[in-house]
């Protein structure tokens, strides 16, 4: 019996899920465009996007009110929602690939809390610890960078604690995440005690998680970090695919495992940190989006990561639309909307896949 005797052209080649996922990308891009348009068009103020666009097209100037609402409020909020949603979904997907299980999410395992701690520390202690020249040089980037550092540290600690001999224990990861989150929360609480009134006002919105504070300045501070992580993440796709087999097996396939791990941790910390710095802790986007996409088109990260960015952006903008229209003109914190959506999905994965994720 030789291998050659087996060469019969086997019947139906199963459909290529990566090709299907690429087609899905087009639909997701279309969806994002629609949601972004809706996000620009709908709001507490009665400004009509279409009449504004029409008057622009006719070469007329916008009224001051319309200009302020569209340009200074809705556009930065829409762009930031898209950017933050993409960042949260992609960092969820990357983290799940890195930890080899579908329950890893920056919000659940304490990375967002670590990033929040970094941001709070920067606001409360920055001025007293850092020389004025450094503060001035960093400017608006100080808080996103500090959040990135906090997220990075907590991801590294989490990975070290929960991975032994190239295998990650899901139970250890979730428990370590609880401890890390609690610790970061406690230190953050201490810092809040030390804060003065102005700093307290800056801090208030963190607990809630909201896009309401969107400004061009915040957007521009977070955008480069998030963009870097979003552009870099797909380069990790092959490595993350191979990591699904375990660290050793990935190495035997010729993947530079240590480099993939380091870059994945940096990408997660960058995207999560920058997102937390501008919008506080918004949970569950990172777990719902990759899970839905794996159901729809398979777990290959080469398609999963770009699609997660598109769907994450759409989903967060959708949640933001809900949060600012259901009790308009007041706003529901967006974290409530995403949690109502996401927590049941998390439980569902937990129940359905308990065996598979080795709990």
């Amino acid at each position: 019996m030789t291998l050659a005797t087996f060469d019969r052209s086997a019947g139906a080649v199963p459909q290529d899920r990566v090709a299907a996922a690429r087609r899905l990308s087009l639909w997701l891009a279309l969806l994002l465009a629609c949601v972004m348009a809706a996000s620009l068009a709908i709001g507490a103020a009665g400004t009509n996007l279409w009449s504004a666009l029409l008057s622009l097209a006719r070469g007329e100037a916008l009224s001051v009110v319309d200009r302020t609402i569209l340009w200074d409020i809705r556009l930065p909020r829409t762009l930031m929602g898209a950017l933050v949603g993409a960042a949260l979904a992609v960092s969820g997907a990357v983290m799940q690939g890195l930890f080899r299980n579908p329950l890893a999410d920056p919000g659940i395992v304490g990375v967002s809390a670590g990033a929040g701690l970094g941001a709070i520390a920067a606001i409360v202690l920055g001025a007293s610890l850092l020389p004025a020249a450094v503060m001035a040089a960093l400017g608006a980037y100080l808080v996103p960078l500090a959040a990135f550092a906090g997220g990075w540290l907590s991801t590294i600690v989490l990975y070290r604690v929960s991975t032994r001999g190239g295998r990650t224990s899901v139970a250890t990861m979730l428990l370590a995440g609880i401890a890390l989150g609690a610790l970061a929360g406690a230190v953050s609480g201490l810092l809040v005690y030390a804060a003065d009134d102005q700093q307290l006002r800056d801090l208030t919105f963190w607990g809630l998680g909201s896009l309401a504070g969107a400004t061009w300045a915040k957007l521009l501070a977070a955008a480069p970090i998030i963009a870097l992580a979003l552009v870099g993440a797909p380069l990790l796709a092959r490595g993350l695919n191979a990591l699904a087999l375990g660290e050793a097996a990935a190495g035997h396939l010729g993947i530079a495992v240590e480099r993939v791990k380091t870059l994945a941790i940096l990408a997660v910390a960058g995207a999560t940190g920058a997102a937390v710095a501008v919008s506080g802790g918004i949970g569950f986007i990172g777990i719902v989006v990759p899970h839905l996409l794996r159901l729809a088109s398979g777990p290959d990260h080469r398609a999963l990561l770009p699609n997660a960015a598109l769907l994450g952006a759409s989903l967060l903008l959708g949640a933001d639309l809900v949060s600012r229209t259901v009790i308009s003109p007041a706003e529901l914190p967006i974290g409530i909307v995403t949690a109502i959506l996401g927590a049941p999905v998390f439980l569902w994965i937990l129940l359905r896949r308990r065996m598979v994720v080795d709990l």
Partner: protein
Amino acid sequence: MIFAGHDITVTLGRRAILHGAAFEARAGQLTAIVGPNGSGKSTLLRALCGEVPFTGYVTVNGQDTARLKGWELAALRAVLPQAATLAFPFTVIEVIRLGLTAGTSAGRDRLTLRALDTVGLAGYAGRFYQELSGGEQQRVQLARVLTQVWEPVAQGMPRWLLLDEPVSSLDIGHQLLVMRLLRDYARRGGGVIAVMHDLNLTAMFADAVRMVHDGRIIAAGAPAEVLTDAILSRAYGCALRVNRAPAGQATWLLPHMASA
């Protein structure tokens, strides 16, 4: 061309698992590593493929593995782990495609489907890996590993399969299928190194046997030279007697002496 480990010492925690083991396997042969539980046979294989830290050095086709890049090594040898669980819902064919490019898109599917056929899983391509039995999963992993180094000889150099108990969760029919497949890979010029638990299959299919005992290779040679009453009884700590199958030439074992 040989795959060799020189003076391999592995210490895990404070305990030395291997003490300066010297290992050699030839291309064109199926080399079996055997030994009792805890003898260090799996650790030897893991040192040979670089999974555990060790002192000493390993050469493939005369090249020091420490000087080869990961992808260069991946083109020369593939490694089958003992058991592998997957956290994500990959289909069977997607797992095998990981052996090609670490991607799951179709492309060179003639090869992946042939590999699947070879391990007796034709028609399983679209099934979910997580829903297969342990033995089926093991064969899917074998197909992935075969796909990685499909041609036993490439650019005049033999390629190598390193396998940790490749038939441990298979029924006897599939054990024979896989062992024939491995022997065939060696016949066509490749090198096969397998940690084996089953001494009868080893006697039937191996061209060379290395007996590991207490972290040392205590015997090396053809099956008939290594699988002897004296060596087996010493290594496994019980009276074993080798016998001959009535019709064939292969060595076979009789554990019945132990209870006598």
